[in-house]
């Protein structure tokens, strides 16, 4: 993998931040900007400065601006008035009626914050979860083509969803039951691989192939279920394509918790992942318990990804492409790659969600479509751009 020219440990050039710190800050800034600006996108047009004011107001707990809507305050009124004037809406009365303005602003606040923010945050957290899982798995399996669904997770979760739709379980609480079943379904193949890894003496190639076999098996089970009740086909397929529109604050909190737990656990293995790249024999001779690290990473990524997938459906490419992007900016050291890849995944999925909401507005695309449309060409670009550059020196 081409990365920046390695610098020796602990001696960055004076007066300049190390490259990985710049990348981290850059992506963090991009993410923050996206979080503030993405609520602009949707079927109802809200001016971007109104959006920013609303988000700021909510995020600071009402401290700033003090009241975008309702009682007057210089800043809020400034934001609102200029927005309203520029919109030139016919529904506006010529003399600005505070109560009408307040009502409109209240509606805009509800749309921008209560309706658009939960899916957006889900994109951020799920994207980070997929990114860091993909990065960790690529390192563990020493294979750049690995994504978080490697071990059968996507098909397992699809089976879980299909079970719900086919047998019409819990029709009254479907909204709550679907993520639960998808989560359980996604865990099953991962747990099988984890138990296989505990058996000892399994190389990473064997685990990889186990995952592939499980993928096929669960795919067949899925097909059987769909055959049994073809009418559930459309529901399952729609879920499979991935969607963030049903997100709620509760979903966000759950995925965030999983991200913090799982991400921390994975991040602690940065040094071990570096050493694993030399092969499990060498790693063990140097003191790294390669099998235990592999097992733990498989377990944590399975749980983390299953949580994300339970609420978002199967979104491809984020887990595959984000690690490559992160490595291009940060180099091959996993201690630095893992924090950055979480940010990259978050940015990628958030951008895709914005595209999904905007491109054929007011219809919202399933978010798996823009990630593939953006991710695939970008991935090809990365691959073929690499070929043209030779690594200096003999090999």
């Amino acid at each position, binding site marked *: *993998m*081409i*990365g920046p*020219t*390695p*610098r*020796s*440990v*602990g001696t960055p050039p004076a007066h300049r931040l190390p490259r990985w710190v710049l990348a981290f800050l850059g992506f963090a800034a991009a993410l923050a900007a996206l979080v503030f600006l993405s609520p602009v996108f949707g079927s109802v047009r809200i001016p971007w400065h109104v959006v920013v004011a609303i988000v700021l107001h909510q995020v600071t707990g009402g401290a700033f601006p003090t009241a975008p809507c309702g009682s007057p305050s210089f800043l809020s009124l400034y934001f609102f008035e200029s927005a309203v004037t520029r919109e030139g809406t016919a529904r506006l009365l010529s003399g600005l009626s505070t109560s009408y303005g307040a009502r409109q602003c209240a509606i805009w606040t509800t749309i921008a914050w209560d309706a658009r923010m939960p899916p957006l945050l889900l994109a951020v957290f799920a994207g980070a979860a997929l990114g860091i899982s993909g990065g960790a798995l690529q390192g563990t399996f*020493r294979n750049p083509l690995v994504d978080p669904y490697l071990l059968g997770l996507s098909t397992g979760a699809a089976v879980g969803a299909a079970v719900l739709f086919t047998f019409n379980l819990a029709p009254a609480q479907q909204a709550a039951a679907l993520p639960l079943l998808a989560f359980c379904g996604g865990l099953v193949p991962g747990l099988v691989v984890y138990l296989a890894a505990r058996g000892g003496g399994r190389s990473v190639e064997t685990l990889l192939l186990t995952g592939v076999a499980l993928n096929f098996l669960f795919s067949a089970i899925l097909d059987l279920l769909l055959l049994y009740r073809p009418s559930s086909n459309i529901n399952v397929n729609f879920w499979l394509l991935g969607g963030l529109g049903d997100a709620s604050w509760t979903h966000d909190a759950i995925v965030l918790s999983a991200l913090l737990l799982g991400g921390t656990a994975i991040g*602690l293995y940065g*040094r071990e992942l*570096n*050493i694993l*790249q*030399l*092969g499990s*024999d*060498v790693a*063990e*001779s*140097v*003191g*790294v*318990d390669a099998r235990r690290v592999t097992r733990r990473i498989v377990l944590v990524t399975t749980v983390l990804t299953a949580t994300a997938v339970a609420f978002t459906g199967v979104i491809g490419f984020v887990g595959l492409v984000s690690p490559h992007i992160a490595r291009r900016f940060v*180099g*091959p*050291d996993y201690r630095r790659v893992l924090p950055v890849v979480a940010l990259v995944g978050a940015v990628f999925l958030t951008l895709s969600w914005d595209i999904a909401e905007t491109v054929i507005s007011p219809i919202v695309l399933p978010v798996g479509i823009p990630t593939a449309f953006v991710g695939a060409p970008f991935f090809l670009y990365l691959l073929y751009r690499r070929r043209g550059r030779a*690594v*200096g*020196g*003999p*090999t």
Partner: protein
Amino acid sequence: MSGAASSGLRADRATVRYGARVAVRSVSLEVTAGELLALAGPNGSGKSTLLRAMVGLVPLADGTISYDGRTVEVQPLRERARTIGWMPQEEEAGENVSLEQYVEYGRYAHIPPFSAAGAQDRRAVASALAAVDLSRFSDRGMRELSGGERQRARLARVLAQESPVLLLDEATSHLDMGHQLDILARVRSIARQEGRAVVLALHDINLAARFADRVAVLSRGHLVATGPPSEVLSSELFAEVWGVVAQLRRDPTSGLPYLVPELPRAARPSRRPGRSAARVHVVGGGGSASAILRRLSDDGFEVSAGVLHLFDSDTVVADELHVPTALEAPFAPLGADSRRRNGELLDTADAIVVAPFPVGPSNLANLHDLLPRVRRTPIALVAPPSGIPWDYADGAGTAAREALLLAGAESLPGVEAVEGWLRGCLLATVPDDGVPTTRANR
């Protein structure tokens, strides 16, 4: 069990199986601190497997491997890594990290779990890099190093582990000669100065003999010999284990033994029944004829040489090739006996080749004795390389040479032309199967 002398790595009837195949059969040996033990043997003899068993990567089917009395297998990985360092023959390429970062991987077992590398770790890395002479490349990416540099980098990583035991599997196979000797010398000095026990697996038994304190020879999983090099090395052992016939020599400067394999007999063209090979007599001395002797011998000619002085380097080669030689005492002028013997050889030769030997008063007769035969037998004189003086006989050598050439001898520009000339002048007698024949068969 205590005291520095008895601490060390010990294999006790270690047996390793891969399925039904036994890779290492009941091997018992011991390496003490400060000692360099070379593990020699042909491919597939079990050297790598034994080293892997010593570091705990493959399980033992029988026997134990222990360090300082404690079995290696039960030690936790981090403790084992601080005790035993293993350098594999090959490893996966890995990412393009900096060399310094790579060597720091060897410090993993010394760095506490949630800490960064400390000053002691950095010092270990720096001295490991210095030991393999790669300090100036510490910023380079691993993928930018050559094969030899990467091998040294691997060794540095293992050295950085600062383990009392070092297991090196073919640590020098990709290196050029200079680096090989250098690295092995450094490894030996590290072993002695730092009191480490080093096991070095090599396929080159001569290198093993040169640097190791003791040599252990493995053949098909069995330990067939252990001991100091001078005791272990022998032609019989070499033939038995490697299946190659070799001569045991002793290095004059160090007194250490080394083995020189003979060329496999099959390289020589086989004799046709009913025919004998052509006879060529080579005149030389001072090392000028060595190459010619070897070549003609390889090509299947029956070679003789003379008159050569004892202890001349050409004599050594002739002796080695079992070439009939007319000999004279060192530095003595050619006497009647040696000249008569030489004459016999000359008269029975189908062709005579004169190497560009330095001519002095003592061997001038070599040229004079050729004159009577110049009409009967094809003679070729290889021209001496220009610019190098060869006539130490006040011009008598040059005169003799001129005389021979005038009388019909050929002049050849160099050693390479000899074979061509020989085949040419024997052409009329060379049948289609290409084996030169004697005059008797024409």
